[in-house]
């Protein structure tokens, strides 16, 4: 039977099978598995049926724990049900997994295996998550490639139905889940042939039904639990054989034969590596290569890891084996060894004892770790392991792929060792996220894979920035199947393309180039001028490697053809033209065909623009005649300035230029603790334009400073004397602050940290009276301003900060004189969240501890290499941590508990030491009023004095007090996260923390979707908006978190939108912090996932408030004490229709374009929601709150 051949990634390959074999699918987003749930939701929305002709019901849950629970229930009532997850998500499913297995329920969970967070979170792949489920009683089936993942998704389903053991089918996160490869697609007939409906019917017959009632999930006592637990043994004993039989049937059907353990290598191998996942493919290919060169080596790929069949394992090992290395892609500190290693040791021991081993003498078995968090695992590393096995006493518990200079466990390897097939063409592309390089390459891979006889593979590397991110695409294609799940190595690429000229100044792009290869550069300089513009290293590499060198001014072509910044199709056309993978005309025809397919549904205009870009590209492609000598004196820029601290230079800088793999173990902290204040060293220079200040027009209102998401525009008021040493172009004007007569004022931009989002210009209320198109700040090209403004910025930083005690910060203008302690994050340009965090850092940053839920804010806040959280000149600043996604409120509460306890302890100690310390100081400290900045400063001075005195006191209590004395100065706890956390996964905890009555401040950065994982719906998603997992438009209204919180009566609640009313936002932050109980601020955060012009984010906030979609209010329990209504509605009655706000946003608009009727129906309902909520709030705000004329009794006691 001939099957379709398609080029897709493993997430899609698996989803295609899982979707067609299930009826109820419960989903929750988590990287890197989200793609599977997204596809299932899309297909369900498009009414695509499963193999039984019904459309699977796809439901999003509030967490992975919820998804597992829903699946459990669906299974119990007789559905075929599945879910997709990874990492922490899988951990949350474990309790249900025990139950599902204990009840012998057939199901398959598909897992893109990902690192479990330890000292740090990582979104990348290893087996630490699946290994944490190996005790649950689930079968674990591992796939090592896209094709295998596709196949095993089906094998697992067939096997679980027959064995009744639930299956966890896994494949490596990113490396396999996101690798695009050419596979043979299983047809519906294949699926039907493999799934025995009789078994489905039996599953249904076991279901809970009032028509034939049973109970399941009993509680058992010591008398029978143990026996019951052993009752399942026959099922587990039978399972491996069942799986093998299914695999055999599958082989008959498709020709692809799998085994529980697959051996590849020399039949007389002496040295064998055992491992699973994508690394096994690399190991197998390397073993084959070495075997062809006479080495007696082999590799065992583990497919069925649980139930672990020792007999099957030993059955495939050659009798000649003398040494075995077992490689685990996980780490279990403190264990006797990693799990697969322990299993192999036990299996060999049993095999020898019980006589089923192929050998009579025990081989040497060692264990090693590799590939944690998608660390590269290359043939060179495999060879290093085989080489180690040549030793008489090979090292045990080794690592490979890193340099461990601390415990010296790592094996050395030769990075130049390569087994690449000469017939395979290898290409590396450097691009910007925004320029479309990755999209173009995904497209090219599809063209090559599906329109030619070639096999093709694509894998994409991204940095962790959400603006100005660098992407590196690794493409392979050739006549043989590509089994190389690792990046293209240095010196291995036939073709290197650099889509951004500026990268040449920072990154060593040509290290990938193979001698005699091709280098394609997007350059504003034509072929006859470009040479002298190249950095010295680039010239040297081109000459030394004898590269053929091409240039194209892709941005010029893009401009001419209306493509803007998208150069994808232009560079793609050049790639095809130079690489010759297809005849030119055919290549162009294929590119156009794929453009039609990809963009056709978005309208003819899009297609025509892309066509024009393709047509113009070739005319602009030029080959450069490479001179024979190096002419440049200019070298690549250092990643950070020489003045940067050593840790930044030595540890963080290599990460900034994609050289982090080279860092040895000793360079990294043992416990995941990093310094703050490091983002300022990156100087990413990503803005094409930056704001330029016009002092004549400026009214010094501070609005631009307040809204700047990146803290790159700042203002200072200072004594004129400081201007003496100012650079020539430094701008200054008379300060217009009543607190600062005779002072000077400057608004300054950091040119190298700005992202060019222009939010500041939008926020500026001052217009030039002679030319209203100009404001007090106006965008201008960055390059000509860079040097001058860099110098001005440095000078500006050297000016003294404003005296925090000298001003009242209750106005926007004054508050923006405060130094931000959150700066230069890698958030999206124009981010709607970061201005709130920056404001918080300005107001309370020098005394704040932050608990940050996983999400966008934890990524731009704490993803290496640098952090935007920073400190002031006194060394004080926010202390920040991320625990998990689901537990953030509790995590923050724990911080508060420490502060409360240690403060109490400090006060107790202080009182007991009053005589030694001095009564008056003790009194002053204990009775200090710390409500103002001045009060806090005085208290700090007192505590400093206290510490001086304590140093001279011998009493042990003095030592105790010394450690906790800082708690005598007021501290704030801010609990920060997005709506996914607050409304969904963390809601239970959030509710409990609100109920606790403790003094914590909760800031919900509400983007109304799971932004960080790509825009999945949350309960904060408003009605009528489209989101992933709500592809038909959300049918139900947004959860009213504020209203729920108000029901406690003692929680301060505010709903704010900085773009609508910045003064209101400021006030809410100050009130929340001042309130000595729990506070909740829900902050409208416009987001790239809304599909808006990000420059207009503030306008959208305004419209949201005017439409009543986002009413502004503050609920202050303190007002109750005054006998007043605690709820103050701070926005006016809705004055515009919801449509006027909503239809500026793609998330709403796209539904009108795909399903106009539903869009209309939902919008009408959304309008009703607004009316109803407004009435409700209005009534609440108008209620008379006097209770017996005496008001409320105040906040509850905190116990």
């Amino acid at each position, binding site marked *: 039977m001939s099957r379709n051949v398609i080029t897709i990634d493993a997430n899609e390959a698996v989803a295609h099978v899982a979707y067609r074999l299930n009826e109820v699918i419960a989903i929750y987003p988590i990287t890197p598995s989200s*793609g599977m749930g997204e596809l299932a939701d899309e297909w369900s929305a498009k009414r695509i049926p499963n193999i039984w002709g019904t459309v699977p019901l796809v439901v999003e849950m509030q967490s992975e724990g919820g998804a597992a629970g829903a699946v459990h229930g669906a299974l119990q009532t007789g559905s075929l049900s599945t879910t997709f997850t990874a990492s922490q998500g899988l951990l949350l499913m474990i309790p249900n997994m025990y139950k599902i297995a204990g009840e012998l329920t057939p199901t398959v969970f598909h897992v893109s295996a990902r690192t479990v967070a330890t000292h740090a979170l990582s979104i990348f792949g290893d087996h630490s998550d699946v290994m944490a489920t190996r005790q649950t009683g689930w079968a674990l089936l591992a796939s090592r490639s896209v094709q295998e993942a596709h196949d095993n998704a089906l094998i697992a389903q067939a096997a679980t139905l027959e064995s009744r053991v639930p299956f966890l089918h896994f494949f490596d996160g990113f490396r396999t889940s996101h690798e695009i490869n050419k596979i043979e697609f299983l047809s519906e007939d294949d699926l039907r042939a493999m799934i025995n409906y009789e078994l489905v019917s039996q599953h249904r017959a076991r279901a809970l039904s009032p028509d034939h009632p049973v109970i399941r999930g009993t509680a058992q006592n010591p008398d029978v639990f143990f026996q019951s637990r052993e009752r399942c043994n026959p099922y587990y004993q039978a399972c491996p054989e069942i799986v093998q039989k299914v695999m055999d049937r599958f082989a008959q059907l498709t020709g692809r034969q799998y085994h529980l353990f697959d051996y590849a290598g020399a039949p007389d191998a002496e040295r064998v590596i055992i491992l699973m996942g994508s690394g096994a493919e690399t190991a197998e290919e390397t073993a084959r290569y070495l075997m062809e060169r006479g080495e007696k080596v082999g590799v065992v790929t583990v497919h069925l890891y649980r139930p672990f069949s020792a007999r099957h394992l030993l059955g495939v090992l050659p009798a000649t084996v003398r040494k075995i290395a077992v490689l685990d892609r996980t780490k279990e500190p403190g264990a006797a060894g990693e799990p697969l290693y322990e299993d192999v040791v036990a299996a060999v021991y049993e095999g020898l004892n019980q006589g089923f081993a192929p050998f009579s003498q025990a081989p040497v078995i060692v264990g090693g770790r590799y590939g944690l968090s998608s660390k590269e695992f290359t043939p060179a590393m495999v060879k290093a392991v085989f080489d180690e096995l040549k030793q008489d006493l090979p090292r045990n518990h080794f690592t490979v792929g890193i340099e461990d200079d601390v415990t010296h466990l790592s094996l050395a390897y030769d990075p130049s060792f390569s087994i690449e097939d000469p017939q395979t063409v290898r290409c590396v592309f450097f691009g910007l996220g925004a320029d479309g390089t990755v999209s173009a390459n995904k497209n090219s891979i599809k063209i090559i894979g599906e329109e030619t006889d070639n096999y093709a593979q694509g894998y994409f590397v991204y940095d962790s920035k959400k603006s100005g991110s660098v992407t590196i695409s690794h493409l392979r294609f050739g006549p043989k199947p590509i089994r190389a799940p690792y990046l293209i190595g240095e010196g291995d690429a036939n073709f290197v393309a650099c889509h951004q000229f500026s990268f040449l100044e920072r990154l060593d792009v040509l290290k990938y180039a193979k001698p005699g290869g091709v280098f394609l550069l997007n350059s504003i300089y034509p072929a006859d001028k470009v040479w002298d513009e190249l950095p010295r290293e680039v010239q040297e590499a081109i000459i030394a490697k004898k590269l053929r060198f091409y240039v194209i001014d892709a941005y010029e072509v893009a401009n001419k053809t209306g493509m803007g910044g998208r150069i994808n199709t232009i560079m793609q056309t050049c790639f095809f033209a130079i690489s010759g993978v297809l005849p030119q005309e055919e290549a162009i025809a294929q590119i156009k065909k794929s453009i039609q397919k990809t963009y056709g549904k978005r309208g003819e205009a899009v297609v025509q623009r892309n066509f024009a870009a393709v047509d113009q590209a070739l005319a602009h492609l030029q080959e450069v005649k490479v001179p024979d000598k190096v002419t440049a004196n200019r070298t690549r820029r250092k990643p950070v300035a020489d003045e940067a601290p050593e840790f930044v230079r030595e540890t963080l800088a290599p990460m900034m230029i994609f050289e982090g793999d080279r860092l040895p173990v000793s360079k990294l902290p043992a416990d995941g603790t990093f310094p703050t204040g490091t983002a300022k060293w990156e100087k990413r220079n990503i803005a094409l334009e930056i704001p330029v200040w016009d002092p004549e027009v400026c009214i010094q209102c501070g609005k631009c400073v307040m809204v700047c998401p990146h803290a790159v525009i700042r203002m200072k008021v200072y004594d004129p004397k400081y201007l003496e040493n100012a650079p020539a172009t430094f701008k200054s004007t008379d300060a217009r602050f009543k607190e600062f007569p005779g002072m000077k004022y400057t608004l300054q931009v950091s040119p190298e940290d700005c992202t060019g989002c222009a939010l500041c210009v939008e926020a500026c209320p001052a217009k030039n009276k002679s030319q209203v198109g100009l404001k007090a700040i106006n965008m201008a090209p960055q390059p000509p301003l860079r040097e001058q403004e860099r110098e001005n910025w440095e000078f500006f930083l050297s000016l003294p900060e404003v005296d925090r005690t000298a001003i009242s910060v209750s106005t926007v203008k004054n508050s923006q004189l405060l130094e931000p302690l959150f700066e230069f994050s890698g958030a999206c340009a124009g981010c709607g969240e970061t201005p709130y965090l920056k404001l918080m850092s300005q107001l309370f940053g020098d005394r704040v501890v932050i608990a940050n839920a996983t999400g966008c804010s934890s990524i731009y806040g704490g993803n290496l290499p640098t952090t935007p959280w920073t400190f002031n000149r006194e060394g004080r600043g926010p202390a920040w941590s991320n625990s998990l996604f689901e537990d953030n409120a509790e995590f923050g509460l724990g911080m508060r508990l420490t502060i409360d306890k240690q403060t109490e302890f400090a006060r107790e100690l202080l009182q007991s030491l009053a005589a030694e310390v001095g009564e008056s100081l003790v009194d002053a400290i204990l009775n200090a009023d710390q409500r103002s900045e001045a009060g806090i400063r005085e208290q700090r001075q007192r505590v400093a004095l206290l510490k001086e005195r304590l140093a001279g006191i011998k009493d042990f209590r003095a030592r105790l007090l010394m450690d906790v004395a800082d708690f005598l100065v007021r501290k704030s706890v801010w609990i920060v996260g997005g709506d996914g956390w607050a409304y969904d996964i963390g809601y239970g905890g959030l509710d409990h923390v609100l109920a606790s009555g403790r003094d914590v401040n909760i800031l919900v950065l509400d983007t109304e979707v799971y932004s*960080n994982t790509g825009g999945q719906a949350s309960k904060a998603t408003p009605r009528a908006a489209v989101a992933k997992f709500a592809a038909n438009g959300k049918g139900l209204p947004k959860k009213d978190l504020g209203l729920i919180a108000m029901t406690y009566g003692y929680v301060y609640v505010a709903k704010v939108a900085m773009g609508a009313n910045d003064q209101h936002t400021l006030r809410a932050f100050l009130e929340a912090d001042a309130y000595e109980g729990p506070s909740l601020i829900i902050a409208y955060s416009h987001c790239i996932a809304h599909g808006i012009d990000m420059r207009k984010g503030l306008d959208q906030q305004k419209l949201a408030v005017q439409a009543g979609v986002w009413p502004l209010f503050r609920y202050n329990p303190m007002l109750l004490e005054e006998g007043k209504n605690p709820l103050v509605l701070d926005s006016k009655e809705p004055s515009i229709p919801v449509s006027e706000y909503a239809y500026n946003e793609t998330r709403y*608009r*796209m539904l009108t*374009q795909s399903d106009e009727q539903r869009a209309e129906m939902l919008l009408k309902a959304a309008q009703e929601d607004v009316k109803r909520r407004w009435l409700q709030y209005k009534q609440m705000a108008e209620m008379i709150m006097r209770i017996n004329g005496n008001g409320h009794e105040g906040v509850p006691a905190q116990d």
Partner: protein
Amino acid sequence: MVDLSTRYLGLELKNPLVASASPLSKKLDGIRRLEDAGVSAVVMYSLFEEQIVHESLALDHYLTRGSDSFAEALTYFPDLGRYNVGPEGYLELIRKAKESVGIPIIGSLNGVSSGGWIEYARLIQEAGADALELNLYYLPTDPALTAAELEANYVGLVADIHKQIRIPLAVKLSPFFTALPHFAQQMVQAGAKGLVLFNRFYQPDFDIETLEVVPSLVLSTSEELRLPLRWIAILYGRVAADMALSSGVHTGQDVIKALMAGAKVAMTTSALLKHGLKRAGEILQEMQAWMETFEYQSVQQMIGSMSQQAVAEPAAFERANYMKALLTYDNRLIY
């Protein structure tokens, strides 16, 4: 019983009141209600060339932006399959309207270039439209562009569209042509069977507090009738086209004036937006009552009866008329 029927673009209409292009025809239900209200034909809302292009490019921009940049969020929106950014929704509405109502449906295209989009004219015909109105709505801002060039473009465009279709074509003009009769003549020669006078331009306003240019749409009043009235009166009998008067039709008397000037039909929207669809019936009643009072038997009887060629004083439409108006105005001041 007076005979209200008229013939416009070869279409037999039960009366001379036609709904001009407006948001009222954006929904099938609106078109049905217009028929129920008594209008004799509906000009559909306009399919804008720029809007189609813009919607398509904007959708692409926002669906693409941010994609393939960050490992955890390779896209931000689900793939909804097809998007209705082309003319499909519009064409579907015409098809449904033709199935649901008995009155003629006139498609409306708004554009100024001879690009691939004129293909839409044919699609509108295939969807079942009884006629097509081409709305020439363009504000020249380029000082290098001459009137002759612009007019030549228009003529070319009309000719191109005419080639695409068999159904009758009407062209809706703006009043700002230096030599309107000549241009109208050229339109007819290029294939226009009808002329609709005139377009109303959106005239932006200034907000002098925010220093912003604000879009504003003011509904027409009967005062505005006079501009098209004069030009129709001048063109009638000189240019071989069916004319429609659009702008300022609010009362039965307004319709009568339009007809007397030489229009085959009067088009209205503002009156319906202002007073609701029932206004259409009222206008027709007013008209009928007037005709009965003054003993007119048919609409045919009055069409062109006060055109420039038909009035006793043709100069009344020319400069002398202008002077006379000024005089009247002065007199008023004196009293």
